[in-house]
């Protein structure tokens, strides 16, 4: 069956470098620096990445950061909580725009 997403495509991510190696290398260097231990641990960064992967709904990132989070020592309970954080922010972000809806409605209503 044809589908836009194939799990095996994740291994071909680096092919993006073929179109523009200079930009790809900059991205790689930046990406590597972002995930290196800093003020946050690698484990914490991996959990953030997992949550963001759910917010942007990227199946490749969900796959990669599920494995990465486990390999950085997180467990399913922590990972599930991270997904709920993404969910709460996503839901909350929609809901808070309800204030704009209310403002707009108030402005044009009697």
């Amino acid at each position, binding site marked *: 069956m044809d589908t836009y997403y194939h799990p095996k495509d994740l291994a071909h991510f680096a092919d993006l470098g073929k179109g523009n190696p200079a930009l790809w290398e900059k991205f790689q260097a930046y990406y590597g620096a972002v995930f290196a231990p800093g003020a946050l641990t690698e484990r914490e960064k991996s959990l953030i990445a997992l949550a963001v992967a759910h917010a942007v709904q990227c199946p490749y990132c969900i796959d990669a950061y599920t494995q990465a989070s486990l390999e950085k*020592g997180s*467990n*399913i*309970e922590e990972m599930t909580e991270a997904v709920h954080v993404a969910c709460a922010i996503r839901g909350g972000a929609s809901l808070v725009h309800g204030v704009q809806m209310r403002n707009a409605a108030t402005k044009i209503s009697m």
Partner: protein
Amino acid sequence: MPVQTRSLKARGEALSSAAEQVRLLQSGGGFPRFEETLARASLDPLGATGIAVFQINVGKLCNQTCRHCHVDAGPDRTESMSRETAEMCMAALARSDIPTVDITGGAPELNPSFRYLVVESRRLGRHVMDRCNLSVLLLPAQADLAAFLAGHAVEIVASLPSVAPSQTDAQRGAGVFGKSIAALRVLNDLGYGREGSGLVLNLVTNPVGAFLPPSQESQEEHFRSRLARDHGVVFNRLYTITNMPISRFLEFLLESGNYEGYMRRLVDAFNPAAARSVMCRSMLSVGWDGRLYDCDFNQMLELALGPGVPAHVRDFDPASLGARRIVTGNHCYGCTAGAGSSCGGTTT
């Protein structure tokens, strides 16, 4: 998949045969042979650099049936070291100056000669380590075991895969997390893991699944804060160990469709620095029947020592054994991935 309560052997599984496991591991699957990878790192053949650890595996009897067990141990196993073989081990030890005796199983404490091995090794002035599954300390028949270990200043190396009860129970059986914490409290009460007591309590964690372990340092911090906060438990060091693709973990890999992915992950993570310090280079492993092996994994795969050295502990010769050539296979990728894996944690 629930944790099986019987060993592969009791279930009559083909994988209970060491030869079948070796056949599977060596049958290619597109992975380079471990020896080729070693050769590329200029490490083939791998040679021992002496014997710092005398590891005695007293048998396969255990009160647990963990899903990742590389021994295929369990309550249904009967292989157990006899007193005569235990005495041969101690005679061999006396003929050497090996500083550390590492006693493992199964649950080594269930062997009738376990206490003899501890007392005699200590009498010979050696450091003794007990590979303890924790729950054994709560068995009514072992009520005095913890005090015995403390009395002989035995270092305890205890398995606790995760600070999450669900993960620990998934790997080691229902209720094992609760029992492990109860046993850790008993050990802490005796002084184990507490500064200044001289009683060393180290923990071992294996990944609960087909992935590599986290960094030992970060995981130790994580365990330390969680165990203290949630359970008031303290310990000295945490070792992270990679699951070996043999025995019941191999069964899990095959059943869950993870075998190829996991092997690929190990092969891709091959680290020459880890390979240089694999534990077999500095240890010797004695089986329940007295036969000698390069490590506990080779023992379980029944890969005997290479030619030209004694094959049985009764003929123990520290000089030739300390300079032997090590027998390797594709399971060895488990020791050389990432930061490396050994009984004492990472190797790099």
